[in-house]
């Protein structure tokens, strides 16, 4: 028999630290940016592209820009951006057609809404007191915006606009749409065929048509379907449409969360004698919502962006307010700057909410399972 060639030498070597390479940042650059010929080419291209565009953008946006002046001619002379259009028009952009001397009311309403949203972001502050605080906040905001009480002059909803209107529509959509979506999701899963059919029909139709169509339909048809003499406020019509639209999409998200709950949970709840509503409200829905929360946050951020759609049916949200302000012939040339400012505003809101959504996803006790099991 041939002698065994395979052998191993047991050597006891103590643990030691990983050998550190000299100039680790150089290695990082070499590996991460120039790892292969492909990589090197891409990096070179990217650097070239940045070198060509960035200086010009900085020049336009900052160095040669006109920052504040009430004279559009000064802007025209400046080779760069005209940020003066913002200093000139920002009141209209932010508050719409709200009476000028009452802007403090709108600003206070904005502060209240933003404050409540920020507070609600801290999960451990959620309680009955927070819900009550929300109710009071909504009442306060409505009082400020509508007036007619507490010595405030009445202001019609047709004068609402800008950021307050955007925030109110957004909050209304979420507060109204999430419960509606949950009900729809439950209805869709119902074993009662009629309720299931109505729910599915509603969800599929609303999800199959554009949001504009729903807004338009609500705007045009709600007055048509009301008995004579009953008129529904335009803002309310838009709000209803947005709630319905949100609910249909939220329903699908919640349904995904519900589908991920194992049957044993339902069976266990049945076995200890809970009714349908008790089982769902205490056991099933909390779990389903935790699973569905990341996707739901997506829908919520989208709802914020969708508030711009009401500008198409004539409400003066921030976008329409800006467009209208820019119809001023002296400033109309500088519309792109104004829209960039608006975009930055939306960007701040939306990325804050998205970042928050990502944080929740990571911090969930079950690691944020998505709806698929």
């Amino acid at each position, binding site marked *: 028999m041939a002698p065994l060639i395979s052998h191993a030498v047991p050597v006891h070597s103590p643990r030691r630290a990983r050998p550190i390479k000299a100039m680790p940042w150089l290695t990082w650059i070499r590996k991460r940016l120039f*790892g292969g010929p492909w990589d090197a080419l891409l990096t070179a291209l990217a650097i070239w592209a940045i070198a060509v565009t960035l200086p010009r953008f900085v020049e336009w946006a900052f160095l040669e820009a006109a920052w504040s002046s009430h004279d559009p001619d000064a802007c025209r002379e400046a080779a760069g951006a005209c940020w003066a259009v913002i200093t000139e028009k920002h009141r209209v952009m932010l508050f719409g057609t709200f009476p000028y001397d009452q802007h403090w009311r709108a600003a206070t309403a904005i502060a209240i809404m933003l404050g409540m949203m920020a507070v609600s972001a801290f999960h451990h502050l959620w309680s009955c007191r927070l819900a009550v605080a929300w109710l009071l906040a909504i009442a306060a905001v409505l009082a400020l915006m509508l007036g007619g009480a507490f010595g405030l002059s009445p202001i019609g909803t047709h004068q609402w606009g800008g950021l307050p209107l955007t925030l109110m529509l957004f909050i209304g959509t979420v507060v109204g749409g999430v419960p509606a979506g949950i009900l729809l999701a439950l209805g869709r899963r119902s074993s009662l065929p009629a309720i299931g059919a109505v729910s599915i029909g509603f969800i599929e139709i609303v999800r199959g048509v554009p949001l504009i169509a729903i807004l338009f339909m609500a705007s045009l048809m709600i007055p048509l379907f009301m008995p*004579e003499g009953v008129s529904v406020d335009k803002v309310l019509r838009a709000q209803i449409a947005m709630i319905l639209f949100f609910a249909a999409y939220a329903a699908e998200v919640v349904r995904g969360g519900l589908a991920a709950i194992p049957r044993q949970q339902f069976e266990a709840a049945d076995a200890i004698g809970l009714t349908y509503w008790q089982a769902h409200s205490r056991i099933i829905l909390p779990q389903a919502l935790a699973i569905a929360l990341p996707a739901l946050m997506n829908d919520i951020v989208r709802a914020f962006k969708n508030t711009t759609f009401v500008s198409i049916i004539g409400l003066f949200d921030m976008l329409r307010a800006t467009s209208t302000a820019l119809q001023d012939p002296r400033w109309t040339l500088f519309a792109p700057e104004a829209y960039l400012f608006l975009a930055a505003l939306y960007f701040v809101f939306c990325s804050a909410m998205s970042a928050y959504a990502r944080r929740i996803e990571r911090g969930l006790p079950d690691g944020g399972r998505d709806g698929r099991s």
Partner: protein
Amino acid sequence: MSAHLSQSGIPRRAQTLPDLWFSLGFRALAYQILVIGAVVAGAVWLIGNAQDALARLGISTGFSFLHERAGFDIGETPIAFRSTDSFLRAYAVGFLNTIKVSAAGIFLATLIGVLIGLARLSSNALIRALASSYIELFRNTPQLLQLIFWYALITRLPVPQQAYSVWDAAFISNRGLILPWPIDAETVARVLLAVAIGFVCVVTLRIWANSHHRRTGRHVATDTAGTALLIIAPLAVWAASGAPTAFSVPELRGFNFAGGLTISPEFLALMLALALYIAAFIAEIVRSGIRSVPSAQLEAARAIGLRPWHRYSRIVLPQALRVMIPPATAQYVSLIKNSSLGVAIGYPELFNINNSIITLSGRAVEAIAIMMAIYLSISLVVGLLMTLYNRSVRIVER
């Protein structure tokens, strides 16, 4: 005793009303009747109000208005349209305009989205950062705002006389983008039709080939057939039409260009707004799709000696595609529906045309119903196609 005996011999007493109430079946029925009753009653009340209102306004109902004279002009008309044509034809124009801008948007969005999604996966940190910035920027601003911005930008470009040009053949000004275009428009239409039909055939062929693969474990090579349908057939159509090569290059005449193909500012802005926004979402879908393939698959591919190109094209991509297609299709449907934003800048797509029709015919309810039916059909058809395709490629399991 004349008690009724059930088959097991246990005496049954007649069901009383309280028994009925506790029976689950009865309760279910009762709830449903209540719900349906409420819905029907609500519908009757709403429609009654509506009919009263319409009667008061002197508007009649029905769909016969579709054959009436439209009475308005349309800016962009893929098929010929005059104000004397019918409302029905106006709907057709709106529908075609929607499809036109949506198709262009979907194509561009897919191209950009895939590139950026792959960039996000790159080992090159700079490219990754750039891709992430794009996605964050375009996802966190409203689509309508992007549309208005692009339109504002394009309409503030210099006038045609000072247009920016590319090689003196393509020009962009505040009147739009002008490209050189073949003179023989009919041939172009036929070739495009051949491509469209070829595309549908290729998709059908792949669905069949995939099903065959699932059933028999044998792969059917469809590459040659695909190339033939998508490239050779349209080329043949072009050749058969006399192989026209004459191009019309735009020339500045007076205040505007003549010749070539004009892409209106509205179409351009809408296409950009739709494509760039959805591309950000497609990029994320591509990234998560590729990452969903377990790294063990890549290891196995490496272990049996596959080259990087084959690793990704034959192992990773087929599995990733299965994960990517449903959400991507949802995005495409979303893009098609959001083409209705064109109403904000005056692009004559379906929603916009519908508004004109409502204004001129007064038939709000019917028009809205028609418009919603068309959008619903598009959503359903696209969804159905996706389901068919995905079903043909689903991983075979016990």
